[in-house]
């Protein structure tokens, strides 16, 4: 019964759009709107260190580590600038970063500081020619702005490493804290200075730099995807339940009632097919956004449990609402209006953490709000599954209350 019903529903184009296509498209749009380095697909960045030495290699490495690159960005290392250039023209990479490897090794302290300052003004030149001695260059094919932006972000991250390394070194120099031996001969011993700055560069920073270029891009989809799933769960379940009302007016329900099948089985079959379709759509969205955007929804167990609780709550509420409607038309308007009202009040269209306090309070009167708290904790704040037990409890209660109410109401619709 469920399977027959399910098969029938997935042949319905509007069901496919509501359950599978719309949430994905909207999540992508919102993700792009609110995220910075959001891209569709992978970005491959080539990196080369010209005449590398131990110092420059470790600076680059820690710069890359600092960037905390998401899954959709891959780094390829090259040995020469020519390789990077040909990689771009062959489209095996989307952008290239050229780091001068003898950075600082020959310059004096002032020289270096001057160059570092210059770095900021010169590094974002898009050119395929070899960069100046002390500046990091970013090369991109120019066909798409996104890979260039990503590479610039990575370059900035490497650069900040050099700069903080210098800062640490300079501070140490001036205060004489750790390196009393070199106090007087900084300017004359660039190698000592370099070793200091490298040491500073690879030491973890005392504060965390928020890498807004990448982090938010990844997580914003990891947040908006479940958020849109919530909205369309409600609308999709409403459509499914409307199908039951339609079967009544379309007469097929009479035929079902005439068949040697329990009316309870008919109701259960219908509701189960709605739930199955809803669950499949959300889990699929989870997989899609992970593969295509490298988005992370957070702790998998927490996400899975929260998806189930959210699906049950939203479907329960939506089916109940539909079962109250007298006509199909009424059911349609009701689920659209209530669906979007819940989405607006619940905060589904806002980026995580952007709701003013008074709206946060309002949002918690909706299942949407509670589900978003859960998904936000998982994707934005890195909570484990125990962190979403609260929202799951609230959603579970909503699911039980409206689930039972729906069963009773739909049972009555099926009775002739």
């Amino acid at each position, binding site marked *: 019964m469920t399977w027959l019903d399910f098969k029938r529903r997935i042949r319905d184009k509007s069901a496919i759009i509501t359950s599978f296509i719309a949430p994905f498209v909207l999540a992508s749009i919102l993700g792009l709107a609110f995220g910075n380095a959001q891209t569709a697909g992978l970005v491959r960045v080539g990196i080369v260190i010209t005449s590398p030495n131990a110092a420059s290699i470790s600076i680059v490495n820690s710069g890359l580590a600092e960037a905390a690159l998401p899954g959709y960005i891959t780094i390829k290392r090259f040995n020469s600038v020519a390789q990077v250039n040909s990689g771009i023209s062959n489209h095996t990479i989307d952008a290239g970063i050229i780091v001068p490897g003898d950075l600082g090794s020959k310059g004096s302290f002032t020289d270096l500081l001057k160059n570092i300052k210059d770095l900021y003004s010169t590094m974002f030149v898009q050119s395929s020619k070899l960069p100046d001695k002390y500046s990091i260059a970013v090369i991109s094919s120019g066909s798409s702005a996104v890979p260039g932006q990503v590479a610039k972000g990575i370059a900035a991250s490497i650069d900040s490493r050099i700069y903080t390394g210098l800062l640490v070194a300079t501070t140490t120099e001036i205060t004489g804290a750790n390196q009393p031996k070199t106090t007087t001969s900084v300017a004359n011993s660039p190698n000592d200075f370099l070793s200091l700055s490298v040491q500073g560069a690879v030491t973890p920073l005392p504060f965390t730099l928020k890498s807004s270029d990448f982090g938010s891009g990844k997580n914003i989809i990891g947040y908006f995807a479940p958020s849109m799933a919530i909205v369309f769960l409600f609308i999709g379940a409403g459509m499914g339940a409307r199908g039951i009302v339609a079967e009544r007016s379309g007469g097929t329900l009479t*035929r079902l009632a005439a068949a040697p*099948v*329990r009316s309870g089985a008919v109701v259960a079959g219908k509701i189960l097919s709605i739930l199955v379709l809803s669950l499949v759509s959300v889990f699929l969205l989870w997989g899609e956004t992970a593969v295509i955007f490298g988005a992370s929804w957070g702790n998998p167990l927490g996400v899975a449990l929260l998806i189930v609780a959210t699906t049950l709550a939203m479907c329960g509420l939506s089916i109940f609402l539909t079962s109250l409607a007298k006509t199909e038309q009424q059911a349609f308007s009701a689920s659209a209006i209530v669906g979007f009202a819940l989405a607006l009040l619940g905060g589904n269209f806002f980026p995580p953490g952007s709701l003013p306090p008074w709206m946060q309070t309002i949002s918690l009167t909706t299942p949407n709000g509670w589900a978003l708290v859960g998904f936000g904790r998982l994707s934005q704040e890195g909570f484990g599954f125990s962190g979403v037990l609260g929202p799951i409890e609230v959603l579970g209660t909503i699911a039980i209350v409206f689930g039972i109410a729906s069963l009773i109401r739909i049972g009555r619709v099926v009775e002739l």
Partner: protein
Amino acid sequence: MKIEKVSGTGSLPVLECSHLVKSFASRKAVNDISFHIDQGECYGMLGPNGAGKTTTISIACGLLQKDSGEVKVNGKELNHKSILPKRDIGYVPQDLALYPELSASDNLRFFGKLYGLSGRDLEGRINETLETVGLIDRRDDRIESFSGGMKRRANIAAGLLHKPSLLVLDEPTVGVDPQSRNAILEAVQLLSNEGMAVLYTTHYMEEAERLCDRVGIIDKGQIVAEGTRRELVEQLGSLDRIRISVSGMHREGAEVLRKLQGVQEVIEIGDEIEVLIPQARLKLPSVIEALIENHLPLTSLEVVEPNLEAVFLALTGRELRD
């Protein structure tokens, strides 16, 4: 050639309804209705709009909870909660009850599975039933692409799929073109001849006359008369008419016929003579004999029996169709 009917074994009726009562709010839609249908019998339920036909059928098929009374299908009691006895019934609702977005065969597959059919058995039945209703070449087309008449026929196919012993059709020809209507009537006739019991509701008198072995006339929730057409007409006491032409000699003819025993009235209508006489067919030989004896040139002779329309009119004082 008329196929010999597989007649009832005389044992159990396929459907037996006793004293069915059903009210909606204060209105009694069905008020103490009893009837039965034997194997191979086609029972017609004839009545105007709102008479209670659909309500009676819904109770008989276990779709609707009755207030009181009893329904037995092949000896098994059936109510709105029954499961197994419903297998014996093939129900064809008054309104189209198919999924328009699915093809004819997909619809039948869906409903066939509900009746426990599957696999090759199911596929075989799908083809057979589509053959029966003449839709086999539209097998894989969506229902929404069908004409009204074709939809009706597909609707019937869905009720036949599981070879029920009782086929229940609720006004299957309403709003159907003559071609489809004929196809439907022929299919029903064939099934009935093959031994299927048929409950057929209609407000078309001609259909009941053509198809049904017995007819129940229903009005305001009650069966006001029941029997074969013959019985009904006799019950009404209306007289048959014999329409006679005796070229140019109708006056003489009328004279002769008036003297004939049993004749109640003789009317001259133009060149023709109409004789009102009970059981006209039995009296035909004596009528012909009398005319020949008096050397009257008989050119044509026709027996006109009163129809169900007349019966209905006589019983209710209303026309069958408003």
